[in-house]
């Protein structure tokens, strides 16, 4: 039994290597692919996180700067509501308020303060010169603050960047008046520098005004190889302000490096596992091959003495014919059993070694009759009969030994498993295309679902009949392989009762699908 199995594996050897390699590549490839995708995703995720963080922090710094303006706006609104617009009150405001540098009041589009008809200091004169465009066209003030087309805003910021020091004004319309406070731009810069206090660890935030660095959350020296992760231009009036955020670039190399190393380890392990399985498999196969070789050798050695035994047993049987009943019966048993043994050996040898294909014309009538005759004694011993049914003249081209073996296997099966049917029919039917050689028994038959299985090596139908009957389980497998080597096929039909195996051969065609080797 082991012989066939090992032999079968033997035949799959080159394919198994291919499969092993394919499996290995697939597993390693999958690990590499998904691993790489995971790493890629991780890098992207880190990058994205870093950027989101940068945006949040930039926004935080932006709000911080704009808060300064907002706080001033709120305070100035209160101040504007409380202050009367006479000279002394306004002067006091300029004098006392740290944030306010100058004030103007427009009344009905005329400059009410500073009053040009009075004597002005140099500083006041400069101020008047600066705001002249606004006096001529007060709509300049809200040109930048329009949010609603219908309604001009009543308060807001205004900036002129033309002069050396930007002129930053907060203005409000009150009654028919427009009031404007000039806020010290330098004070704004100074306050931002003083109040800005961000600590973003290793990352760096910069507040720049017109490209000039105002604030840095960390010293430049530590900057090293940082990459800008985000930048923001503040809205009007601080459009010249920019907030930039720097951080260490997401270190893709580290992720890829370590991740790659991990993947490599994973792939190596997977590869080793596949290799180990393959090794185990091929080792068994090698062992089997050795065993098959051994069995084949032994069987071959057995063949010669067996042939002699058969020869002399048959000679003995002929000598004894007509004499002692007892002796003849013994000789018949010896002949029968030696025939059986030689078939068995032939099967094993066929299975393990492929004999050469020897095509020759065969006269079917004598050929079939000869086989039937060969089986007659054993059939008779089981009280079974063979009915041969065939046309007189029919010849085909085929291999005598192989054909003999196929038909013998069919008959041997019938003898072993369908003895209860008492009758076996051997029919040859010649059609236009093919020749069918059928062996039908009248036994219990084979369940249909098992028909496929019986051609597999070492499969034996489990039933009361097979119980206790010796068998290798390779008979039908060999029959089919031989049939295929002859360019034919084996069909199974289910007449009731029993089963019928049909060997279908091409009509006198020269069957040469293969060089005769078993696949």
């Amino acid at each position, binding site marked *: 039994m082991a012989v066939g199995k090992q032999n079968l594996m033997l035949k799959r050897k080159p394919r198994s290597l291919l499969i092993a390699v394919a499996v290995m590549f697939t597993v390693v490839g999958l690990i590499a692919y998904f691993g790489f995708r995971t790493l890629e995703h991780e890098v992207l995720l880190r990058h994205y996180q870093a950027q989101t963080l940068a945006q949040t922090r930039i926004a935080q710094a932006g709000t911080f700067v704009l808060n300064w303006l907002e706080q001033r706006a709120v305070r100035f609104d209160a101040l504007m509501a409380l202050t009367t617009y006479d000279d002394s009150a306004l002067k006091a405001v300029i004098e006392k308020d740290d944030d306010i540098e100058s004030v103007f009041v427009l009344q009905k589009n005329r400059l009410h303060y500073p009053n040009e008809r009075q004597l002005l200091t140099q500083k006041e004169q400069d101020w008047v010169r600066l705001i002249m465009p606004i006096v001529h066209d007060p709509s300049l003030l809200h040109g930048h603050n329009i949010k609603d087309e219908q309604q001009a805003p009543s308060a807001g910021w205004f900036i002129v960047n033309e002069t050396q020091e930007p002129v930053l004004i907060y203005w409000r319309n009150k009654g028919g008046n427009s009031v404007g406070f000039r806020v010290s731009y*330098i004070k704004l810069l100074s306050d931002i520098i003083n109040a800005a206090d961000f600590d973003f660890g290793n990352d760096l935030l910069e507040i720049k005004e017109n490209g*000039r660095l105002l604030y*840095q959350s960390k010293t430049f020296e530590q900057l090293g190889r940082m990459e800008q992760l985000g930048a923001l231009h503040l809205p009007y009036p601080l459009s010249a302000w920019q907030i930039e955020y720097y951080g260490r670039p997401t270190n893709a190399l580290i992720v890829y490096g370590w991740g790659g190393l991990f993947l490599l380890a994973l792939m190596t392990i997977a590869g080793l596992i596949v290799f180990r399985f393959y090794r185990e498999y091929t080792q068994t196969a090698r062992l089997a091959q050795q065993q098959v070789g051994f069995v084949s050798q032994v069987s071959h050695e057995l063949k010669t003495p067996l042939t002699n035994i058969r020869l002399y047993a048959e000679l003995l049987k002929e000598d004894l014919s007509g004499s002692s009943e007892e002796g003849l019966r013994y000789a018949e048993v010896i002949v029968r059993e030696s025939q059986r043994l030689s078939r068995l050996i032939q099967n094993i040898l066929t299975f393990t070694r492929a004999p050469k294909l020897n095509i020759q014309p065969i006269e079917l009538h004598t050929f079939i009759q000869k086989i039937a005759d060969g089986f007659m004694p054993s059939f008779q011993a089981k009280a079974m009969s063979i009915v041969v049914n065939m046309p007189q003249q029919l010849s085909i081209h085929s291999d005598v030994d192989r054909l003999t073996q196929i038909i013998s296997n069919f008959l041997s099966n019938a003898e072993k498993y369908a003895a209860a049917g008492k009758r076996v029919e051997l029919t040859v039917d010649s059609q236009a295309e093919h020749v069918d050689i059928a062996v039908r028994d009248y036994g219990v038959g084979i369940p249909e679902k098992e028909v496929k299985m019986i051609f597999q090596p070492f499969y034996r139908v489990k039933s009361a009949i097979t119980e206790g009957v010796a068998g290798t389980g390779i008979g039908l497998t060999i029959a089919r392989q031989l049939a295929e080597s002859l360019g034919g096929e084996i069909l199974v039909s289910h007449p009731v009762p029993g089963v019928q195996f049909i060997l279908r051969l091409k009509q006198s065609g020269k069957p040469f699908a293969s060089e005769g080797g078993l696949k």
Partner: protein
Amino acid sequence: MQMRHCLAALTPLVFALSANAGTTPVVTIKSELAAPVILENTQDKNYVKVSLTGFSLETQKRSPINLSLVIDRSGSMSGDRIEKARDAAIMAVNMLDSNDTLSVVIYDDTVDVIVPAAKVKDKNKLIETIKKRVHARGSTALFAGISKGIHQVSKYLDKEQVNRIILLSDGQANVGPSSVSELSELARIAAKKGIAITTLGIGEGYNEDLMAAIAGYSDGNHAFVEKPSDLEKIFAKEFGDVMSVVAQDVEVIIELANNVKLVRLLGRDGEIKGNKASVRLNQLYSNQEKYVLLEVIPAKGTHAETKPFVEVNVSYDNLSTKKKDTYQKALPIRYTASAAEVKSAVVEEVLADSAIQSMALENERAIRLMDEGKMVEAKEVLNKGARSLEALPISSPAAKQKVQENVSQNDKLIERMGKEDAVSSRKALKEQGYNTQMQNKK
């Protein structure tokens, strides 16, 4: 050692000045005309001088100081300079006491407040911090450094103490706002809060225009520290000033009578509106004279006529009484036909001061010439100024001495320009001009 020496030098000075204890101390204010009597029907230039001299201070009674040391630690400060700056800072800690407030700001491209404004209690700890943290590196964020200094002083801002920032730098401002106008504006903001900024420029690398402007707009002192070893001496002098502040927030308003024409302010800058000039001084030091000098053209008058000429108003915070003192005085002008009478009435010191200030303005022109590379012309201007100052017809010893001091200074500068490079002499010239205009001790 030098530090201790300086301290020793300061102490007797302060003692000597505490003579008039007992009476209410007030600032001595004098309003004078260079020529109180003038020839009839002439309109020669005249000068109004309002001088203010701080009263003597009792040793125990000096006003508390709110000081911020702003120290440049940019790369160029490394070596001798930062060491001396560190020593100076340590000296400052030693000179202050527990009534005083100190903060220390160091800056390069970023600013660190290494000692946040707080009363000077644990001197050893402060000195430790300074020793550990004041080291050179980086570039120069001057604007941010001063901003932080202002912020620190502002935390404990009090009109009754001396609020001051001392800036030590050897560099150009190269990070953040760096123009003279921007830093002047920042100094003005400090002045508005009553904080004076003293700027000490070390070596030849700093921008003297910038440093002088910062000091000027905030009414602090400005000094050129040529050698790092001079730093302690200059620091001690600065401390002498800081510790002897007797009045702050001084405002001098000079209003001219009708028909008197205001030409310009000499020395200190101020605000002019019509025929009214107002000048602010951040502080007055004990026994030091500061003055406001106004160049005017009088109206014509007839013999024996006396006309009202000018009205002077002064107000200041008296740190000793913690009250606001005011002073008011009207000066008339008299016309005569006698030249001798005019001559005898001339107040020579006022004349000398106005000549000195005019020369200081000419010296500014010399700096501009130096910038254009015209060294010979610059020297010529300096020389001409010195010679015309020398030729001033004065006889009083005090005025003569004053004049002679300035003449010899110009002469020294000319000599220096011959020997040294332009960079260093320009700084010396700027410093001298600054001190003349602000009437600082030289």
